[in-house]
């Protein structure tokens, strides 16, 4: 089918459908390429919990700030402005912003008398790199992890949010874990799941495919990113993850505890009792509703009026991958 016919179909689609794009990068491409402009108003695209910064708990930030008294904190830029219970990493000076996790190892090796703590945050996409880091980690470099698994989060959403009709699965995560882990999800919850890449055309095609499958009640997984995503994923990467990490429960900002949703390792700094975490709710902030696909960012009363990238109240506004930050820009 040619692209003009697909565009016409999507512009004139008359049934209501709600599709969640799980990955922040998808949200970003949708925004940047003006895809919403090409869709009928009946097609509602909502963002999911796929921005690692947005779901990292307040407790984790507090822990980093506490560790900064003893360790130089190494972090990605996105994490710097995320607020803990009182402060963010922007308020501490004992930190270095990195672009590449492997820079942490170089720093630690070059400065053996200094102690470093790396803020290892991410989904399965970044896990293989952290596993590689652990293989080479010198004694003066520790990791404080907040490493999350996407499948349990999608199960949580399917259990709790009944209005989502189809999912665009995160292509980068799928490249690591493969297409298979999504099969049971599609079947159990009766949702079409489309694995898709990141070009605007790719995403447009995946929206079209999701609608077609939804109309035909075809509740299965369609892999449109086959040149990158294999059935069983990247087996070398998975073996590396398996070697270094095991599964535990984890706390997701705005959601709460999701069973079996964390990757941790034995010497992990993150020795906390997640059962004890109580997050204070921020008045008016609806980041929880945004990452669960209940609302679009513009429906939040704080959006643009009080919450902006320069004065981010909720985590979805902080990150370049966060739904609110993307919609704002």
């Amino acid at each position, binding site marked *: 089918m040619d692209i003009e016919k697909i565009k016409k179909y999507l512009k004139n689609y008359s049934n209501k459908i709600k599709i969640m794009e799980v990955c922040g990068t998808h949200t970003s491409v949708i925004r940047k390429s003006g895809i919403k402009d090409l869709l009928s108003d009946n097609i509602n695209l909502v963002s999911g919990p796929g921005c690692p910064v947005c779901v990292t708990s307040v407790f984790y930030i507090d822990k980093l700030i506490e560790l900064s008294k003893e360790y130089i904190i190494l972090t990605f830029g*996105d994490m710097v402005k995320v607020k803990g219970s009182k402060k963010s990493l922007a308020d501490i000076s004992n930190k270095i912003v990195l672009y590449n996790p492997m820079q942490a190892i170089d720093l630690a090796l070059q400065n053996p008398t200094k102690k470093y703590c790396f803020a290892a945050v991410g989904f399965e996409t970044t896990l293989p790199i952290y596993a590689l880091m652990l293989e080479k980690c010198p004694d003066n470099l520790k990791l404080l992890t907040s490493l999350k698994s996407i499948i349990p989060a999608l199960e949580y959403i399917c259990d709790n949010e009944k209005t989502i009709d189809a999912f665009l699965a995160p292509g980068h995560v799928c490249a690591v874990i493969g297409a298979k882990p999504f099969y049971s999800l599609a079947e159990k919850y009766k949702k079409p799941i489309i694995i898709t890449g990141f070009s605007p055309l790719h995403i447009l095609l995946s929206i079209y495919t999701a609608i077609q499958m939804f109309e035909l009640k075809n509740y299965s997984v369609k892999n449109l990113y086959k040149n990158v995503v294999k059935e069983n994923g990247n087996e070398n990467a998975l073996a590396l993850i398996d070697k270094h990490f095991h599964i535990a429960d984890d706390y997701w900002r705005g959601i709460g505890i999701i069973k079996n949703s964390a990757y941790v390792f034995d010497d992990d700094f993150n020795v906390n009792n997640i059962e004890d975490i109580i997050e204070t709710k921020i008045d008016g902030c609806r980041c929880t509703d945004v990452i669960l696909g209940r609302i679009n960012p513009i429906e939040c009363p704080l959006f643009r009026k009080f919450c902006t*990238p320069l004065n981010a109240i909720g985590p979805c506004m902080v990150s370049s991958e966060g739904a609110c930050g993307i919609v704002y820009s």
Partner: protein
Amino acid sequence: MSHGSGGQMTAKLINDIFFKHFQNDILLKAEDSAVLDMNGKIAFTTDSFVVEPLEFNGGDIGKLAVCGTVNDLISVGARPLYLTCGFIIGEGFSIEQLERIVISMSETAKEAGVKIVAGDTKVIETKGLFINTSGIGDVISSVSISNSKKGSKIIVTGNLGEHQASIMSARMGIENNIKSDVAPLIGLANIFEKLQNSPKNIDNSEISKTAIQTMRDITRGGLVTVLHELCEKSNCGVLIYEKKIPVCNEVKGFCDILGLEPIYMANEGKMLIVVEEKYADKVLEFVKNCLYCENATIVGEITDGSDVILKTLIGGERILSPLYSEGLPRIC
């Protein structure tokens, strides 16, 4: 610190490095102020440079300090003539590196046809090197950020994002061949002169002296930031086409990996030129013949709206908001 004392060591530094490389009749008089012959309207600007790393693929802080001020003068329709430079040098800074940077400044100034006629040196306890340049130029043509009219075409003089990509690559330890685009766009000043003196193009049809309405150096904040300034000052909107935006493949790849957008990235040798619609193709032809401008292209037009709108490759429209923070690489 003795190099900054004002005594003999300071004099030695000035003689051995600055006078040696910047030498010209006005500077070598070593007066407390340079005395300049100027006629008519002059353009006057200043800028400070604090880049890290000091030397990068395609240039260094010295070349940057000359080009930044030279291009600012050109963008108001002036021919750059004289620069001053202030050096703030961190204690212990390598004399060899300082000399390399001064030579680079001197060569760039020669290329741009400007004389460095006055300077100052201070040594401080903080590490690093900081340079301020101020510049004066003869105003040839009256272009202004407030002059853009509806329907006029927008020319960008070359590939976007190269300076920022080069600096970021150096900071992040990424190996690639991306060079900073830092360059003095002196050819564009020649175009003003050409239009002023004999407004003919190659096929002899006349181009109005006022064909060029606005010029703006596309530096920090990138093309989108300049377009927002333009919309505000000229009370207009802008429509640009994604497929027309000039970006080299390497920068494209670099941006894809890091989640950056070339239209928001810094340049140091690119100009935005707004031209009356009927002369747009002719002026583009002139521009493409200028050094560093061979990839110039028309990227869009001035509209009667108030937003900066991008027509995307896929056919959607996106409102481009101003840049509100530095582009930070994403986590995943």
